[in-house]
């Protein structure tokens, strides 16, 4: 039972304690339920900070390792294997950070079946933590699939009018890719006689021909999750129908499971295939950047606009990651966080005004800044962060990504980065379009006829932590880069470049 007292076990499974408490609560005691969930997620965040304090930033290897034999049948070695390194530490922190923020946003937005909602949400946190911490392929797969279940219900039970369709599509789309990954995992397990990722990496090269197939199988699962163009069709449905907190977590963390998967599994396990695939991934990423930005601009529903902007933003992350140089990969990891912050903030803010007006149609707004000055200002900052204004977080990520991709040996041509940089112009086009049509100009229908209230203290408290981080990362990203640098160096130095 020693594994129960490992720091990372505590971090991963702590929300389950909250779930157990919630199970015994009266479902009518909504406020108490909310508080229990909130305290649980805050304590989890506290634990993540404690883990951070135990984390040695100059060590490129896995740390706080909890490795125990789990299933040992017929000579198979499946481990209970949790560990953290520079590639995952920021995502772990992001997960623990965004969960209480999302819960705070549901305070008045979720009134029905509050208990079930909180249980699913905390279960989702367990799943996400597990995905980022598991170092055993089998264990990873279990967590990976597990996250689908609570998210399915969050969309399906608390979503918009077409929630069933969206939830099922989300579920099946992800499943379809995961099944291919499962086959690849089984192959690796048989081949290496272990499911432990570090052991598989240490064992060394898999024949290049087979690497390709395994790479593709993993890519199928991860590319859908990211989502990479053209596998993004589930995303607008899921985002539009999901409740605000669901969208925040979906954009903020769940999509990062895909990009993280590439980083943790594809690149170190299949180095030859990775280098060979880099120009292709870069091509799809570039198309995604331009396509996502163009399609975003034509949206009439503001949530859909932000959803498509994610296709563009995640394109940047993929482009940087497969630049396979230190700037590109570091930028990609930081941009995963940045996207979680800025898109998370946008979804939160949209949710706040939606709660009052019950519409997301852009053109019925207009002139919101006048009636909701604080809201308008915060929305402006989140928008600028999303379009990569220097001094805010988005720029630091996008700039390092594009810089890395421009001179990448693996991608082999500056054209991808050059064309992707046009995406930076297009981001200004769709973000400013959204901001103008909703916040500037004369008062629209909704703005005139609703007695709109500016943000209250709870709502301010929800977004302020995100704003602080936007400025922090934008002006002084050193602490963040320092956490990831050694692990990135190690990852890249192992590649046959």
């Amino acid at each position, binding site marked *: 039972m020693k594994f129960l007292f490992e720091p990372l076990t505590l971090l991963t499974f702590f929300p389950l304690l909250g779930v157990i408490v919630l199970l015994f609560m009266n479902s009518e005691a909504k406020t108490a339920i909310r508080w229990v969930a909130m305290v649980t997620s805050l304590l989890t965040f506290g634990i993540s900070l404690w883990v951070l304090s135990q984390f040695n930033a100059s060590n490129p290897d896995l740390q706080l390792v909890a490795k125990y034999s789990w299933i040992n049948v*017929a000579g198979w070695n499946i481990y209970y294997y949790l560990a953290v390194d520079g590639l995952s530490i920021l995502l772990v922190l992001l997960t623990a950070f965004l969960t209480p923020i999302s819960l705070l946003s549901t305070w008045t937005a979720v009134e029905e079946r509050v208990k079930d909602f909180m249980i699913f949400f905390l279960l989702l946190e367990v799943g996400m933590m597990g995905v980022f911490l598991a170092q055993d392929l089998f264990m990873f797969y279990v967590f990976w699939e597990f996250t689908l279940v609570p998210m399915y219900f969050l969309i399906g039970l608390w979503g918009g009018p077409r929630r*069933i369709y969206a939830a099922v599509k989300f579920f099946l789309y992800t499943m379809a890719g995961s099944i291919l990954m499962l086959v690849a995992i089984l192959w690796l397990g048989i081949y290496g006689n272990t499911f432990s990722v570090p052991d598989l990496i240490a064992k060394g090269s898999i024949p290049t021909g087979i690497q390709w197939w395994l790479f593709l199988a993993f890519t199928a699962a991860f590319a859908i999750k990211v989502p990479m163009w053209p596998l993004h069709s589930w995303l607008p449905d899921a985002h539009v129908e999901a409740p605000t907190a669901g969208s925040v977590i979906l954009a903020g963390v769940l999509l990062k499971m895909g990009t993280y998967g590439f980083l943790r599994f594809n690149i170190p396990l299949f180095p030859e295939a990775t280098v060979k695939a880099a120009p292709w991934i870069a091509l799809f990423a570039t198309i995604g950047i331009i396509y996502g930005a163009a399609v975003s601009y034509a949206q009439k529903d503001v949530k859909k606009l932000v959803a498509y902007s994610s296709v563009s933003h995640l394109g940047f992350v993929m482009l940087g990651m497969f630049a396979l140089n230190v700037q590109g990969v570091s930028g990609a990891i930081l941009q995963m966080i940045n996207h979680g912050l800025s898109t998370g903030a946008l979804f939160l803010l949209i949710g706040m005004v939606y709660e009052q007006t019950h519409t997301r149609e852009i053109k019925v707004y207009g002139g919101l800044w*006048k009636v909701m000055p604080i809201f308008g200002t915060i929305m402006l900052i989140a928008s600028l962060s999303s379009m990569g204004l*220097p001094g805010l977080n988005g720029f630091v990520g996008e700039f390092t990504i*594009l810089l890395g991709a421009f001179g990448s040996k693996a991608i082999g041509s500056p054209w991808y980065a050059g064309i992707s940089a046009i995406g930076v*112009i297009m981001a200004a*086009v769709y973000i400013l379009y959204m901001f*103008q049509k909703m916040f500037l100009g004369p008062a629209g229908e909704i703005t005139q006829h609703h007695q709109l209230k500016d943000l209250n203290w709870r709502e301010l408290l929800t977004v302020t932590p995100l704003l602080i981080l936007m400025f922090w990362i934008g002006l002084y990203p050193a602490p963040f880069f320092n956490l990831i640098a050694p692990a990135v160096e190690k990852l890249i130095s192992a590649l046959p470049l």
Partner: protein
Amino acid sequence: MHLSETVTSGFFFLAPWLVFAPLTGLLINLIFGKWFKFSEKMVGTVASLASGAAFVVSVLLAYSVSINHGEMVRWRLAEWIHVGTLQLDWTFRMDSLSTTMMLVVSGVGTLIHIYAIGYMHEDVRFKKEEGRFPRFFIFLNLFIAAMMILVSGDSYMMLFVGWEGVGLCSFLLIGFWYEMDTLARPSWANSNAAKKAFITNRVGDFGFLIAGFLMFWYLGSFQFDQVFEAAKSAPPEIIVAITLFMLVGVAGKSAQIPLYIWLPDAMAGPTPVSALIHAATMVTAGVYLVTRSAEIYTLVPQAQYIVAMVGAGTALFAATIAVGQYDIKKVLAYSTISQLGFMVAAVGMGAYVAGMFHLITHAFFKALLFLSAGSVILGMERGHHHLAHAHHESKPAKGKKSSKETHDDSHHDEIFDPGDMRNMGGLRKTMPVTFWLYIIGTLALAGIFPFAGFWSKDEILLDASLHFTSIYWQLTLAAFLTAFYMGRQIWMVFFGEPRHAAAAHAEESPKVMTVPLMVLAALSILGGALNLPFEGFHNLGHWLGYTLAEVESLPLDLKVAGISTVLALAAILTSWLLYGRNPLKAGQIDPLKRPLGFIFTGMENKWFVDEGYFAIIINPFKKLSQFLADVIDWQFWHDFVHDTVILGTYNWLSEIALDHYADQKGIDAFANWLGTATQSVSATLRKIQNGFVRSYALSVMLGVVLILGYLIFK
């Protein structure tokens, strides 16, 4: 990357306060303004003091540079982005070039802050939005901070932070009255102008970024000195690419062909903004950038030539448009584009001192002209307000509805444009102070001896006459047109008889506005003394020579000066013949319209360039994105491929394959449990889902069985 910081005496440790001072003012107004209910005077004073503090710091820094004999000094505040070989810091750079820019920005900036206290006091009242007063000063302080980052950064990327930061402030201030148009009617016009400025600048920034990427991978750094050093041994085609991509950035920020289109629309911002951002400081950032990069531009003469041609072309092209404008600020806007063309041409030719000299004098006289124009516009507003008041009192008995009816058909209550020169006339009598200030600004801009503009423009013309004949003639023609359109403006605004009752009742502006103008007027008269073309008087050249490798100190050339003076006087005379001798009457068409015909129509309509952009870029992009979103992404990819083909096939297969296994009751129960929304989903859709969930359940089962089976029986 870290060059050792030279330990020198002076006030260099104050450098971060260039940025922190205006930020402090911003934060005080932002945080305490509401709580302590700051009065307008208080807000304005805090903001002006913050900007003034930045000016004091600039003076101290310039002094420190001079006592160190022009030695460049760095001050590192913190690290910024350190990733591998990419090493960016927040490092301030103080040399004669950057301190010159600091002085101009904070000096002119502070004067405009003070002026704006008076201007905005009235502006917010005319627009009935008194609560918005503090916001203006918060944005203005933010602008000063961003501009200081731009001019004091020690690397191209820190410069870029300021570069985009000022773009943001420009967006915010152009869109300050975001719910109306320039005539205060509810409209999208102002916010469109703001958006247009930001996006056009982003196109320029794209060029800047690409130049930066090339710089990093071929020259290995973003830090100025390291870039300059590495450039000497780099392949010339790379340097050409870097400098030309940088030119795209310059064209965006400094409003050159083909990206100048945002600047005229930017006049939607309150007049102090037009003066500060869109005339004196931000738009000159491109000129500063080229001057700063002198060492790499000098390596590639062909790129320099292109820069000079773009500048000269812009100078001439914009001047022709200015001739055909009726809005007092639009004339000045095109004039600014044209003058920026002069500067860009100068730095393109390698005449960096001349370019910087013109940048400085232009900051004085164009700020003066804009602010005086603001005074004119407010004077007209006051006159109109006075009229409306009198009008209202004359018929107080009318009910609300009937007065609205008369509003619709009465000619007297039509929408009044206080900036339209066709409404003005005779203002020299009602606004004498503004009139004389305007005359000084005009003479300086027209390049009449001995005003500041004469010296700086002449230096550019002289340099061009020595090296590039075609550029010389383009600029000379542009200078002729400059004197002409300014003459036209003077006659139309201040002479003749009022063409609108508002002009007859116009009132002079208060001292808080006119006093800063007098300071600017004094600078416009005396500014030429900075760099007189006589032996021993090339002060600016000497000062910038500390930073710039080559500095030409040309003596006065009487031929060039003579030609330009004669042409300027001739242009003013021509404008008098057309607009002064027989002043325009109300409703009369422009006297140039008949003789020039379609040429004048072109000038009036800005040569239809905006329409061209709409036809070639904007509308196609809108259509393309609509097509991608609706047809490709939704109808084809989302509905057809996913819902019809994939879902349909899957469903059809599962109907056949799974009918025997599925428990219809269990599935229905599951679907019902999912919530009430099931009812709203069509029966067909439900059927599809049932098939789906069923098959999903089966595939999960299958997976689990497979794994367990394998594990157990292996």
